[in-house]
């Protein structure tokens, strides 16, 4: 499964390879149970932002608005022009937000900014399926959007 821009005939910038790998993996899963088990394994890999980057109470500017699991995102510039992304999820029951954060961390930290900027928030539904609540879908989409926004902001400032 390769994602194409909706309004263009030519392919949009490719996604970060690790993200595309995840999308391919999840795209092949027909069982909700398999998808959920995989997401739980990924959520187990979630690492909250280290104290060297941010400490509580976090600056509200880093809050993902619309994410009810109280996710926060930080984007730190690398010398090579890419970004390192860090996350925290304050709701201890926010397992889906943790899984999404772990995917974004692994896929987007150090990835070319144009690839990160090209990510469509609707990939959430490839990972989680379409039978998640509106609020959950929106919150996870906003988490992706927060990462994309940072990449686009850096690209605009270049």
């Amino acid at each position, binding site marked *: 499964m390769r994602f194409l821009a909706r309004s263009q005939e030519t392919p949009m910038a490719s996604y970060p390879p690790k993200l595309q790998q995840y999308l391919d993996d999840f795209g092949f899963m027909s069982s909700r149970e398999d998808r*959920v*088990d995989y997401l739980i394994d990924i959520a187990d890999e979630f690492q909250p932002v280290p104290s060297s980057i941010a400490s509580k109470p976090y600056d509200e500017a880093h809050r993902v608005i*619309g994410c009810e699991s109280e996710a926060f995102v930080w984007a730190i510039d690398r010398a090579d022009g890419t970004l390192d992304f860090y996350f925290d999820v304050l709701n*201890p*029951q926010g397992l*889906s937000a943790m899984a999404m954060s772990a995917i974004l961390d692994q896929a987007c930290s150090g990835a070319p900014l144009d690839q990160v900027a090209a990510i469509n928030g609707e990939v959430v539904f490839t990972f989680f399926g379409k039978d998640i*609540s*509106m609020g959950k879908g929106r919150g996870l989409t906003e988490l992706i959007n*927060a990462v994309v926004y940072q990449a686009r902001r850096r690209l605009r400032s270049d």
Partner: protein
Amino acid sequence: MSDISSRGYANPDKLVSTGWVAEHLNDSNVRVIESNEDPLLYPSGHVSGAVEVDWVKDLNDPLRRDYLDKSGFEALASRIGITPQTTAVFYGDKSNWWATYALWVFELFGHTNAKIMDGGRLKWVEEGRELTREKPSISPTSYNAPERDDSQIRAFRDGVLAHIGENGQLVDVRSPGEFSGEKLHMEGYPQEGAVRGGHIPGASSCPWSRAANEDGTFKNAAELSEIYLNELGLDPAEPTIAYCRIGERSSHTWFVLSNLLGFGDVRNYDGSWTEWGNSVGLPIEK
């Protein structure tokens, strides 16, 4: 938090403590049911013996915006191994808002022998109680349900319109930003699930979470009365309708008003803002 029986609730039997659930894990007359917003939580670990009721795939009709019908409920009840006599104890994430939603749907089918585990999943976990990933082995039951009765605790669009025409009591349990219609989103990413922002005319704003303590338990009756009776000025003897975006958060408030404060006539408008805010010809306020 104090004992449930000492909190002054109108119907304290609708709540059970985590300790009560722990003592009834092997009670064949009790079925513990987890209902969450986050689909990863139950499979990642749940109360031993608990079954999952998923609000999307178990409670909603897949083709119409409506709940399951009599045969669907009977099939669900059979799958989770309950009879009309079984005490159904619901718990879940987000201070039990999804648990109260599931309980509300069960009560549409007359399964009123239903309770909420106070504090929900979070309290169970924070008390260090055990979770398991092992799914229980359930023997299917035979459940003869009545037709779904939407007339007592469920409100529809036209009923809400008539209600506001009579200056009836309405509680909007969404966030203040949703109530006011204010845009609270990152540039280019609107979040309102409706064409218009605002609220149903005459509604009082009271976010659902005000009824819950930090640990997810319900506030006591005096604290709830202060909010809903004194601050909002609601009259327990008057018909009241609660709504949110799709009726999930407002089921929490429905539970509070009807069971903990003893309001006589409370209905949950599950069409809520996603219907009202998108409907042609309906009035709104900002």
